[in-house]
């Protein structure tokens, strides 16, 4: 079944009180709601509070959702609103300690997400990346974790912590990223024409269609 048709069927069944359908909708869109909250800078506990409100709104909204295809867009808008409400509440508490960085995501993201599709794609991508990351060898996970650390960790320190030569960090990084790309979790997202576009290490790119 096509994806949007599946969602439409779930929405109809959930609106009629079908538990399984409701739970499937929640499972499906939880990464989207989570991702939006975290990108807006909400700490984990606050993201959970905002999420709870989003599910309540969704349940109230289900019956009047005439066009189920509009659900993702509605979720994006509603999640942002609920997150901003939580953030405003925080600011009103004038809790300077919180503002000073107890929010555990005080990082500006490179990729601005403004449209409705972008947060959806981003959430899908994040789930795939985390799944793929989990499937990597421990050596790769350690290295990539250090390389993505914020603030950045110097190569010298990485070399000391992992016991590998500075000169081999670059090549290992390349191999680990190739392993990441070819893991089944990411392969599912990578479209068939993507192969061989860049020479690079070659051959490691999966060719998997949807």
């Amino acid at each position, binding site marked *: 079944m096509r994806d949007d048709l599946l969602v439409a069927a779930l929405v109809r069944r*959930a609106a009629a*009180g079908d*538990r399984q359908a*409701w*739970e499937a909708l*929640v*499972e499906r869109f*939880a*990464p989207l*709601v*989570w*991702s939006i909250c*975290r*990108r807006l800078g909400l700490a*984990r506990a606050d*993201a*959970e509070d905002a*999420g*709870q409100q989003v*599910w*309540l709104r*969704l*349940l*109230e909204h289900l019956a009047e959702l005439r066009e189920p295809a509009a659900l993702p867009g509605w979720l994006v808008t509603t999640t942002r609103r609920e997150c901003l409400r939580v953030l405003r509440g925080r600011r009103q508490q004038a809790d300077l300690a919180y503002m000073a960085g107890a929010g555990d*995501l005080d*990082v500006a*993201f*490179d*990729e601005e997400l403004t449209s409705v599709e972008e947060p959806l*794609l981003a959430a899908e*991508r*994040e*789930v795939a*990346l*985390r799944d793929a*990351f989990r499937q990597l060898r421990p050596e790769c996970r350690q290295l*990539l*974790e250090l*390389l*993505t*650390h*914020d603030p950045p960790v110097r190569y010298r320190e990485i070399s000391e912590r992992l016991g590998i030569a500075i000169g081999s960090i670059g090549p290992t*990084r*390349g191999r680990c*990223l190739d392993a*990441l*790309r070819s893991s089944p979790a*990411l392969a599912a*997202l*990578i*479209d068939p024409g*993507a192969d061989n*576009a*860049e020479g690079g290490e070659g051959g490691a790119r999966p060719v998997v269609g949807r």
Partner: protein
Amino acid sequence: MPDRWWVDDDRLLRLLGEALRIGEVPASFVETGKLTLPWQDLDAELAALTYDSATDSTPALAGTRADDLARLRQLTYRATRTGLEIELAVTEDAVVGQLWPRQAGTVEVHPRRGDSTTQLVNQAGGFVIRPIPSTPFRLSCRTTTGVSVITDWVTLADPG
């Protein structure tokens, strides 16, 4: 034109960093969402706790009950509009329930963690939940007479 974000090493690494900082969706985040449904369950009326033997003293009865009965934790939930009462008694290995007025139906157990289960309520309004749920739970009850109520969260852990 699809965005081929995975091709460039630097960008892939940056996006991986984002994904890791955003972090796994906590199981509790998903569970909370799933549990939203019975809270709102359409026409179900909320049955609130009106009696709990763990916290409410019943001096008039305490001396008169048989010892084994008096020791059982007992709770009563009442839906005021429909007048349905759900009595629960916690035995060693089960929760024994009774609907007042007596009537048949079904009772769904919604634990905070784990799957919901459905129990039949017999004609005398009795039902048994075995084993005792290990996490707080709600009961949603539909009777054959068309009454539908859902209890507040039932917490059976020993009151601290």
